[in-house]
């Protein structure tokens, strides 16, 4: 019983983390058809920015709540700047090329950004555990939960709700839906597709950086944290269906619960299980759970 509830809670927390990272990736893919490898860099930049923010507020001795907000703000600001630079400076040059070529462009960007991190923050690793500690723990029955983890799940739920509301009930969201459905027709009807692209990419970048920022207190912020995140986010997005937000949610839950179950029951297959599930889903539904197969064009 304890194991079952531990699997459920651990899985939920892990799923929250995966969802926050994957939603930006799937948004960018859905609108722009770009599989963005540099998303891992956004995550890493967000985490480093948050670590810096934590350093600032512990030195200045501000209350924990302000520190936490500063952390999020720092992450989002970095995502904003990076997103604008990448979209306007690099991606704009390759729109219209093969999807696979654009993946490689983002891969090149990712390589460059990995070293930019070293240039800015140096090769040492950072600890940013203070918010996690000051949040404290809560006991439910025999289970000890960190309040920080609960906040993490709340943030993920909030993001999911926000994304649903924004896509369904705001003007920008409706415009976005038309662009996702058919870019050229949307452009013909006067939608400013260039602007939609920029805004979408920047929002995606901010979400990626936000993912890094909220995870910073739970991990050691060190070189190479972006590398693993990319493949994890890919797995989540591929399971749910690329470009589908509800797909990202379901994919994150599946991967989160499966991994938690593996960690508690058969720790040897922890990594195997994530990609195993992904391969299994792709075998049955090549385009993921929430995306229909495209008819082939002659």
């Amino acid at each position: 019983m304890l194991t079952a509830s531990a699997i459920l809670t651990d899985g939920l927390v892990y799923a929250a983390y995966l969802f926050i990272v994957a939603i930006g990736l799937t948004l960018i893919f859905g609108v722009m058809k770009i599989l963005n490898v540099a998303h891992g860099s956004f995550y890493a930049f967000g985490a480093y920015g948050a670590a810096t923010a934590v350093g600032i507020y512990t030195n200045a001795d501000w209350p924990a709540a302000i520190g936490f907000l500063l952390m999020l703000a720092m992450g989002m600001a970095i995502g904003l700047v990076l997103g604008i630079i990448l979209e306007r400076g690099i991606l704009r040059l390759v729109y219209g090329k093969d999807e696979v070529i654009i993946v490689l462009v983002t891969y090149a960007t990712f390589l460059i950004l990995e070293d930019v991190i070293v240039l800015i923050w140096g090769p040492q690793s950072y600890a940013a555990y203070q918010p996690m500690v000051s949040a404290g723990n809560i006991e439910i029955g025999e289970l000890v939960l960190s309040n920080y983890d609960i906040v993490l799940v709340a943030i993920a739920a909030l993001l999911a709700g926000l994304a649903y509301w924004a896509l369904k009930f705001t003007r920008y969201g409706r415009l976005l839906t038309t662009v996702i459905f058919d870019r050229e027709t949307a452009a013909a009807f006067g939608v400013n597709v260039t602007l939609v692209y920029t805004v979408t990419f920047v929002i995606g970048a901010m979400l990626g950086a936000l993912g890094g920022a909220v995870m910073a207190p739970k991990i050691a912020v060190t070189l190479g944290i972006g590398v693993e995140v990319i493949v994890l986010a890919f797995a989540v997005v591929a399971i749910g269906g690329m470009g589908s937000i509800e797909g990202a949610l379901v994919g994150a839950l599946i991967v989160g619960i499966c991994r938690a179950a593996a960690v508690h029951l058969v720790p040897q297959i922890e990594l195997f299980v994530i990609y195993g599930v992904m391969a299994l889903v792709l075998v049955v539904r090549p385009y993921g759970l929430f995306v229909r197969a495209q008819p082939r064009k002659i």
Partner: protein
Amino acid sequence: MGGRGQLAGGLMFLFAAAAAPLLPDWVVSLVTIAFANALVVLGLVVLWRAGLVSFGQALYYCIGAYAVSLTARWTGFTDAFALVLIGGVAAGLMAVLIGFLLARYREIFFAMLSLALSMILYGVLVKSESLGSTDGFSVATPTFLGYAPHRDALGLALYWLTLGVDAIGAVLVGVYFRSVAGALAAPIRDNEIRVEFLGVSVTSIIHIKVVVAGILGGLGGALAALAIGHVDPNMAYWTTSGGFVFVTILAGAGSVAAAFVGSLVFEAVRSFAFDVMPQLWQMTLGSVLLLTILFLPDGLGSLVARLKRRREAKS
């Protein structure tokens, strides 16, 4: 590549083989690694001509490498020729199996699924104590039909072995490119439904390509394992695959020779960048890749073609 190109390529190989004893050790080992990796790149070129990019070619690379080191470890059998063959066959068998699945996918889905499969192997290796876990293990010193060289002589022997395997691979892939199945790559890339209307099964052609690429990947991994003397799970990690894709784009899919030149340039740039600015070598690689895609979309190989065209226009 016409008859003249083949002759030039053959002469280059003979020259490279003959020059080896005069070269310093570090050049010999650099070229050995570069040419071992060139086989993997050649496999990616085979796929790329049909418009497919595999972000998981490290799977076969790693299988080839582990096949070599495990065979030597478990049976005490150390003949380099047989070990390399075992590496190629092991990876080829895996490719036959995976091909049934992978041949149905295209574009990004092909890339993602191959990525997932290589990450599965990575996950298994990292968590398996009996397979060396994250540390991997060292590869036994190989022998060559009873001849057991040491140190410098071993480096040279591996260099010649790599050149030999490369030459055979290059010739066979050249033959494959000129065959009907190979020549259909470009039409498949352009419009595969029309190819099916010709009465050809695109799925089985792609399956063959996956297997060819897999065998080449396994051979490359086997040679690399012997040359490096150590295997670890990072050989299956996606960044390894990314490196191979990088070289493929850098070299371009124009010819067989491009894979070898590209691989050599990549290895040279990498060790140079690593020596001169260890903090910035990834940035160097990324910038080179970005500039290649922006200004030389068909790779370094297209420079040669461009020069040739200019000369023809002059005369």
